[in-house]
């Protein structure tokens, strides 16, 4: 697409927004349109002429300047860049400066006087902003940036603008609280908070006091990562090399953590291993093992997290193990190495990068986990829960929460940096390891026995946990051991009445339907935007590419609670007012799950040869055509996978949305939190069961779709569907 075409389209869009559409948001719904072109539905041009928004004249003037050259068929780059950026900055700055109570930036009083209140931006403003972004991008393209392709320029500028607005902006808002003491700017407070003994105390080594919350978090994350990697490795060894026919079973297990709503595993663990739990009571009755409360604290949280992470580690390691060429091992064997020596000197080193990836994924997931520490933590505090209670607890301290969030961010970034380091090495090793034929060496007997000793009890354990979840919703009170069958909980939540017409009377219907709706809207947007960004990052060469990549990944590293509160703080007041709508939930999900789409897209693009793009380009296709006719069709599996993941993530997110739900738009997970708080485990478990089945249906349906859409050439030899995706798309269970 040429710069001129885009520039003209952008001008049209902005003119439409300025002349026709209502500038401000319609609080009273579409009924207010009746007053058009006056009243609350007035477009900008009417507001300007009546003098009600005289401070927005620069927007109109900037737009008018660009019209003559564009219409005459020239695209003056510098002018377009300047006007585009000017319109965006001016509109947003004035929106911030003049709020619902008139002037908010009091230092502007000499300039602006006492302007009337200004509500939030609406459709007209949206079109003008989109148009301005288009002008900006076409200007850049006209100056030769982005290979002079205006389409790419628009995508980059647009997504950067969105990311700034919905990831960076809110984050900046809340983290700046770390340097404020009350209303006073105090950089010293930041230092004090970040180095506070509550975070770094090492008292637990010497005394009975608890250690700093950073150490707790690190300890938990490291243990989770080590254990889940180990268990995942045993599973993978047994599945690939052990000659066991249970591989489909293992694979089925890997889907479970994805579709499990938060809290439910933790509740099942209490039912099993709590002091009056099923297993505990059994051990007491039969073996006189005293009942204790060991589950509350580090062991319980660790167990719950390993349950979620081990299957994902298995996925990664299974793929890596299959990719190792047996020919190297055969070479080793022909040179007379014993089986254990082969494993130690050939297989193990080749696995190392995948092990590191699994380890770091487990580590990061554990840092982000909120549900399990909340239910099972006992006295054991980690950063994610500490942040939540610093914001919502009895002692409200946003500054402390922001400082703790900074620490958590630093830990996550540290982990990502390490992962990036390892990824570099992984590429190298896997390529070396690739070969063609040969029969993989069977496991050494001792190792196989060890694997079996870990794997089968673990399978049994997983089955027990999910068995409790399945049963728990259909018995009176599984927590107290009242195991008589009942439909009561399901009826409370999902009662349907036929009296006069069809009525959903259950208390959970509202939240369930909203959840499905929001997830179903957010998922395609996430997948689409993610894949587009991945394409930009992988296939286009422009300055700031790394920055864009970093920004897409940023939202993954931010703890959910921080995201939630920052969205309320940033989008509750004009210029952008979204709280209380379903839109804020959708936006939150889109930008929070974006890394899933981007990662999936990057992984898929790595499998599609660049020469295809180049061939398309040499035959004269622009970026739009190449994307639409070559790249996207080849990426179909990745797109569908990204769809499934973002849907499932949106349905299980809790900490990010707990402050964003409203009366009309409640979500399933928040409803479950309420049930857990009230001690109604049975109802919470029943609801979770229903959610699990819904997500299972969606995931299986999508996987089936992917199976049929498998590509004939170029795709990875192993099925590219859900099975491989977590390697590229980290999973955030229970976050």
């Amino acid at each position: 697409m040429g710069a001129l075409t885009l520039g003209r389209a952008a001008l049209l869009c902005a003119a439409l927004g300025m002349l026709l559409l209502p500038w401000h948001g319609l609080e009273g719904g579409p009924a207010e349109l009746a007053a058009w072109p006056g009243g609350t539905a007035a477009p900008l041009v009417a507001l300007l002429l009546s003098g009600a928004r005289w401070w927005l004249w620069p927007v109109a003037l900037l737009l008018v300047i660009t019209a003559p050259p564009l219409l005459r068929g020239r695209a003056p780059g510098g002018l377009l860049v300047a006007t585009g950026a000017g319109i965006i900055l001016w509109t947003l700055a004035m929106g911030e400066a003049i709020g619902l109570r008139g002037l908010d930036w009091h230092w502007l009083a000499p300039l602006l006087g006492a302007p009337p209140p200004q509500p939030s931006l609406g459709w007209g403003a949206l079109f003008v902003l989109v148009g301005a972004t288009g002008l900006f991008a076409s200007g850049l393209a006209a100056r030769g940036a982005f290979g002079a392709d205006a389409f790419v320029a628009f995508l980059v500028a647009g997504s950067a603008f969105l990311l700034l607005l919905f990831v960076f902006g809110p984050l900046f808002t809340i983290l700046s609280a770390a340097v404020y003491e009350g209303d006073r700017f105090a950089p010293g407070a930041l230092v004090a908070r970040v180095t506070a003994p509550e975070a770094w105390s090492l008292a637990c080594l010497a005394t009975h006091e608890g250690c700093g919350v950073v150490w707790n978090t690190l300890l938990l994350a490291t243990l989770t990562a080590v254990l889940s990697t180990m268990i995942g490795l045993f599973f993978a060894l047994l599945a690939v090399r052990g000659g066991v026919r249970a591989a489909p079973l293992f694979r089925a297990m890997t889907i479970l953590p994805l579709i499990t709503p938060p809290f439910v595993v933790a509740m099942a663990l209490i039912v099993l291993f709590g002091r009056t739990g099923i297993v505990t009571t059994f051990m007491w009755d039969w073996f006189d093992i005293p009942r204790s409360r060991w589950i509350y604290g580090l062991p319980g949280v660790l167990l719950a997290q390993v349950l979620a992470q081990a299957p994902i580690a298995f996925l990664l390691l299974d793929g890596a193990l299959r990719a190792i060429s047996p020919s190297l091992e055969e070479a080793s064997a022909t040179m007379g190495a014993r089986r254990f020596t082969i494993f130690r000197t050939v297989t193990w080193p080749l696995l190392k990068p995948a092990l590191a990836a699994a380890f770091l994924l487990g580590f990061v997931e554990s840092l982000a986990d909120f549900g399990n520490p909340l239910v099972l933590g006992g006295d054991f505090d980690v950063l994610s829960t500490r942040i939540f209670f610093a914001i919502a607890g009895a002692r409200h301290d946003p500054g402390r929460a922001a400082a703790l969030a900074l620490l958590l961010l630093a830990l996550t970034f540290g982990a990502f940096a390490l992962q990036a380091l390892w990824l570099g090495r992984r590429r190298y090793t896997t390529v070396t390891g690739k070969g063609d034929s040969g029969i993989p060496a069977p496991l050494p007997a001792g190792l196989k026995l060890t694997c079996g000793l870990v794997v089968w009890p673990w399978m049994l354990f997983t089955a027990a946990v999910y068995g409790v979840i399945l049963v728990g919703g259909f018995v009176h009170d599984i927590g107290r051991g009242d195991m008589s069958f009942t439909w009561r909980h399901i009826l409370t939540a999902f009662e349907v009445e036929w009296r006069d017409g069809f009525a959903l009377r259950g208390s959970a219907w509202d939240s369930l339907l909203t959840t499905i709706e929001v997830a179903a809207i957010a998922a395609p947007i996430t997948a689409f935007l993610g894949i587009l960004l991945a394409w930009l990052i992988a296939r286009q060469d422009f300055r700031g590419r790394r920055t864009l990549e970093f920004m897409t990944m940023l939202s993954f590293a931010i703890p959910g609670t921080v995201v939630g509160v920052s969205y309320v703080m940033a989008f509750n007041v004009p210029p952008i007012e979204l709280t209380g709508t379903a839109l804020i939930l959708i936006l939150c999900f889109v930008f929070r799950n974006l890394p899933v789409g981007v990662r999936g897209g990057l992984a898929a693009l790595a499998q599609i040869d660049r020469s295809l793009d180049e061939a398309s380009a040499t035959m004269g296709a622009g970026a739009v055509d190449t994307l639409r006719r070559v790249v996207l069709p080849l990426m179909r599996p990745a797109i569908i996978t990204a769809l499934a993941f973002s849907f499932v993530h949106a349905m299980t997110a809790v900490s990010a949305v707990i402050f964003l739900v409203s009366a009309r738009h409640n979500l399933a997970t928040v409803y479950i939190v309420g049930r857990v708080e009230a001690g109604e485990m049975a109802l919470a478990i029943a609801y979770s069961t229903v959610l699990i089945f819904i997500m299972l249906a969606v995931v299986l349906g999508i996987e089936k779709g992917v199976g049929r859409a498998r590509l004939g050439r170029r795709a990875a030899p192993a099925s590219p569907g859900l099975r491989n995706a977590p390697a590229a798309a980290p999973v955030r269970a229970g976050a």
Partner: protein
Amino acid sequence: MSATRRLFGAAIAGAFGLLAAGTASAQGSLTVYCSVQEEWCRPMMAAFERATGISVAMTRRSSGETLTQIRAEAQNPRGDVWWGGTGDPHMQAAQENLTQEYRSPMLAQLQPWAVRQAEQTGFRTVGIYAGALGYSYNAPELQRRRITAPRCWADLAKPEFRGEVQVADPNTSGTAYTMLATLVQIMGEDPAFTYLRALHRNVNQYTRSGAAPARAAATGETLVGITFLHDAVAQKVSGAPLELVGPCEGTGYEIGSMSIVRGARNMDNARRFYDWALSAEAQAIGAEAKAYQLPSNRSAPIPPQAPRFENVPLIDYDFARWGNAQERTRLIDRWQREVRAGAR
């Protein structure tokens, strides 16, 4: 003839029906933040809708979360009324000028403690129910261990309860802070902290949510849970083998409160709800919803299962002093330093 008349009648009825529907929507709407359990929130809102024709949008969150929400929305409030939840966050909201002053004509019908709650905050909040602090123990577990039934706060510090007491963390829970403030008022500050240090050895877990210890005691996860007594009653009524104790030294109580959000969009409806929620009929809904607090309207029926204050020696809880944010921070800091950090 009669058929015509019937038709005519039906037409008129239909017209009135339309008119009624019109007025119903003209009654407008109301957004309520509800901080008691869902089972109580729902019938409450439904009853108000039936009584007034105002359509209610209700969000249920814990009181801490609601306060966070109202704070975040202060520039542009979304909620109109905040109904329910322990009194401290309501007082804090009043202190931070997040809620609106309103002198309801219903104040005359209320119990003195409810009115005092209003007076102390300059009529920015009002008491809607009260619940005494206490503890509950799991009777079969106690019998199995052959421990004599505890009656007082002091009993819980005895060595036989080692590792058997559960209470919430005052950092996160208003219930636990109420206990802290209550003990300081009963014993005096230094003896109270001595007692808390002794109790600390017996505590197996400081939970985050205030009502969790009652649930834990109900399932036997702990022997004793310190909570508001109505939380324990709710467990007992659903069949748990719990015994409730109002400690012999006396105890404090919470005053569940209600406030109007400052800058509420539906101020008139908010006031209507406020007045209605203080009426006897509205307060009778709690008992049906298994909420066993004491209603603040003097003529509202008291649920038979409710822990009566007559049986529980109540202290003269000074909400103005102990609800103050600075005093609260000071006490919690001291607790964190001297009690929580200690060995068990």
